């Protein structure tokens, strides 16, 4: 089926070339980092993780786009999702690929990457994060490919595939949980030392992952004749709304625990993020933009009338993605390292090479996504189901047989 990706309109090839160009620029910036070391980044002795690990943290959440479609479809036989599951699975593949790339560009000695495999360390969460991310990527690739191949051949997927699908549903929870454990178990990092870190990761993931998927589906519907079906979009939007409510609820639990207890160690990271600490306050505007974005997105998403208005929905989802990105993609890292173990503040700002490498990795992710979605859409086009409603897809097999 990969040959489907080799034929396309001039716009398709121009898009691939543009992405390839951006990825190449990112690659050049990475070569500079490789030669000069991580000194080209804004990270320091006191803030030893930065933008790269922040992207990993957020993109693990985007990979949740698959499970929020697969779980209702296969555990609860919700047929409206059948058509867009493949898009969610392929988005998960691109997201996890970007996660792995961000970890790799973050390493001081990337040529020794396989020491993680050669010297397995069950005590280390990073070891398990490598395991769960790679397995999840290959699970989605395997399931997506077999499903698409079966669809192309107009047969039902093989019976044994069901067990891999069940495994991938459970595995999806593990990638967020293990990534949360990267942070949750470190002594002395008050912002991260919370038992509900994994739960917050899951809630944030189930809000932002499907939101990004829906935004991309809207884009897809605009530039191609693909139709996801209103029922599917509305249900995903409802799932996103509930997940975002839970996400904000969890964050408020953290605020309450820190400020009601009055313990300075728990308060300082949140104070730094929202009003500044010891005169350092560069992230305060971003955090309040996140708060406003989250509140406004919920105002637009909670009333069903507004939520099901597909003209307003993309803006609500955009605000939600912006809010969760600032909270999880930036605030979590910066908050965890502030104040330092000496109760001082060392501010972190991503540098231009850092941002170039980040954009380069995103371009590679977009390349992967473009090729995979191209294959999926061409298969549906061949079957004649690209513009049809999901409920009619079942009949196609019966009539053909």
């Amino acid at each position: 089926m990969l040959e489907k990706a080799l034929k396309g309109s001039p716009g398709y090839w121009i898009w691939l070339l543009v992405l390839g160009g951006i990825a190449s620029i990112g690659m050049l910036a990475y070569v500079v980092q490789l030669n000069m070391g991580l000194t080209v980044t804004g990270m320091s002795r006191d803030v030893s993780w930065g933008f790269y690990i922040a992207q990993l943290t957020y993109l693990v959440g985007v990979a949740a786009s698959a499970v929020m479609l697969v779980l209702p479809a296969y555990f609860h036989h919700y047929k409206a999702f059948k058509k867009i599951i493949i898009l969610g699975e392929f988005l998960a593949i691109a997201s996890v690929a970007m996660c792995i790339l961000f970890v790799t560009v973050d390493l001081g000695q990337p040529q020794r990457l396989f020491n993680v495999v050669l010297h397995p360390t069950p005590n280390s969460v990073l070891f398990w994060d490598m395991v769960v991310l790679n397995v999840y990527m290959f699970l989605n690739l395997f399931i997506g490919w077999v499903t698409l191949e079966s669809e192309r051949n107009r047969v039902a997927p093989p019976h044994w595939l069901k067990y891999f699908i069940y495994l991938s549903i459970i595995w999806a929870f593990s990638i967020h949980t293990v990534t949360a454990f990267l942070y949750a178990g470190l002594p002395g990092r008050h912002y991260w030392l919370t038992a509900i870190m994994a739960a917050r990761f899951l809630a944030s993931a189930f809000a932002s992952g499907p939101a990004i998927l829906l935004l991309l589906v809207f884009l897809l519907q605009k530039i191609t004749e693909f139709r996801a079906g209103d029922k599917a979009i509305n249900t995903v939007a409802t799932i996103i709304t509930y997940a975002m409510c839970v996400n904000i609820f969890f964050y408020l639990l953290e605020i309450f625990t820190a400020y009601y207890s009055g313990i300075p160690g728990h308060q300082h990271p949140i104070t730094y993020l929202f009003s500044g600490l010891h005169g350092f306050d560069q992230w305060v505007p971003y955090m309040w933009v996140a708060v406003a974005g989250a509140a406004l997105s919920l105002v637009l998403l909670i009333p069903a009338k507004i939520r099901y208005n597909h003209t307003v929905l993309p803006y609500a989802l955009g605000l939600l993605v912006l809010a969760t990105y600032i909270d999880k993609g930036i605030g979590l890292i910066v908050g965890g390292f502030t104040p330092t173990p000496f109760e001082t503040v060392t501010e972190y700002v991503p540098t231009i090479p850092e941002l170039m490498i980040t954009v380069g990795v995103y371009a590679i992710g977009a390349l992967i996504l473009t090729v995979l979605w191209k294959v999926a859409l061409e298969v549906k086009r061949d079957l004649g189901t690209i513009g049809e409603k999901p409920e009619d897809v079942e009949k196609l097999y019966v009539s053909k047989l």
Partner: protein
Amino acid sequence: MSKTRRDFLKIAGMSALGLGCSALPAAAADPGHAPRKAAQGPAPGTLPDNALTATHWAMVIFTRRIKGPEHFDHIINACHQYHNVPEIPGHKDEIKWIWTDSFNHTFPEKETHFLAQDLEMMDFLLLCNHCENPPCVRVCPTKATFQRDHDGIVIMDMHRCIGCRFCMAACPYGARSFNFANPRPYIDGAKLNPDYPTRMRGVVEKCNFCAERLAKGQMPACVEASEGAMLFGDLDDPNSEVRKALRENFSIRRKTTLGTQPSVYYII
């Protein structure tokens, strides 16, 4: 022709059998890996005869015996010079194994607004605490940072380090430094110590309690330079210098509430 082939197969079969048999004595002779315990001491042959050994190395710092800033500099330079620690300007990429800071920064959980004036003006030495329960060892994905079973020293294997900096995030004392850039241009060539290797870009480094000097029967460089302000010895030996000092003086440790059990004791 068929006779030749039969002879060849006969010889090949006998050769394969011989190769298989030769592997058996080596496998049978392997006694396996006995579980290593701290009380057993270092594995035979890994340390020279004159090496200093202990079951739990610990350090006591008498801050009151420090004579002034020059004394601190003397101690810090002794360590950094011996270990070729680069002197990188600025705070961002700086590398340090031992350094000084104020009371409130060294012991933030013991912070008080009305600190005694002498403590307010005092500086305190900071270095790796070589915890009994080191979080950095727990999180390292390659075992590049590990704790020696027989004496509790936490050491870095810089050749295995992938530079993920998880240990820096995990260390609640800020004891670890990362080589963000190539450190060698920042080392004074005239003072280069050929006994200890320089590092390279992209690895973490920190105080190693002078494990390589202990192996040669020498005390840590900072202890020698401290002229009695720092004591180093076996915490498990009731007759050791450190135990004697701790018996006679009140001491504190950094961030004891985290349960890491630091091995550096401060006598104010």
